[in-house]
């Protein structure tokens, strides 16, 4: 899974052009297939989908728009506070940093779930 975070207007343009390398305007966070499937097993994407009105799904890329980032941040913090699963907390905290940076940059994020990189 990759999470694309444009840092500015140029980054938004690069994301729209499907740039696949990180630039000074576009950050790309990679999660291993194992990390993706772990978060999936914890229903994390169902919570995000429900709170952010999006459809994050396998073999799809989905935006979490700017006006939903606070909801994403809030539900992720709630899940962290309710969890004792260190692995989940570590991965969710990575998302917290992503949401916070996107809010700070006043942009949005795009999540692309591809499962295993080679089938």
């Amino acid at each position, binding site marked *: 899974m990759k999470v694309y975070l444009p840092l500015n207007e140029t980054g938004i343009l690069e994301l729209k*052009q499907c740039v696949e390398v990180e630039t000074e305007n576009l950050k790309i966070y990679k999660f291993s297939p194992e990390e993706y499937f772990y978060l*999936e097993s914890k*229903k994390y994407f*169902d919570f995000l989908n429900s709170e952010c009105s999006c459809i994050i799904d396998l073999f*799809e*890329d989905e935006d979490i728009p700017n006006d939903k980032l606070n909801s994403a941040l809030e539900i992720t913090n709630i899940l962290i506070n309710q969890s004792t699963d260190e692995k989940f907390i570590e991965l969710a905290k990575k998302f917290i940093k992503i949401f916070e940076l996107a809010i700070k940059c006043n942009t949005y994020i795009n999540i692309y779930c*591809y499962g295993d*990189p080679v*089938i």
Partner: protein
Amino acid sequence: MGAKSLYLDNREKYKEQIRLANDIKAQEALNRGYERYKKYKLLWETLDLDEIVNKLFSNPIYTNIGQKYVITDPNSKYIIYCDNSASYFRIGNKEIPNDQKGHYLGSNLESVLNETINGKIHGTSKDKRESLSHFKMKINKKG
């Protein structure tokens, strides 16, 4: 049995399997495909899965990956991702790794990342890219 029949048969078995197991996580993951289908189906082209599979594969292999039903062939550069909740699919080009969005193709089996407008090449918008690379499955009454 054709690809479409195999898909429909697998879909029913998959749904029954998660229902019997009372697997709420799998059910919720499955619902996402149906939600996507409901939201966007009017924007998607209709294609016949049997025709596509016969065109692209000589020896198709069918596998469930989570809530998706994947059709591939070691001798083909293509791969098909069917949703196990609603009748739609995407086509991928294995020559472009599936960790890149350019992996997904349009119905002409060409990349949908760029389009030509007034003789100039532009990046395709996300909405258009999505609509060009998802296909409703043509379902006959006989299935």
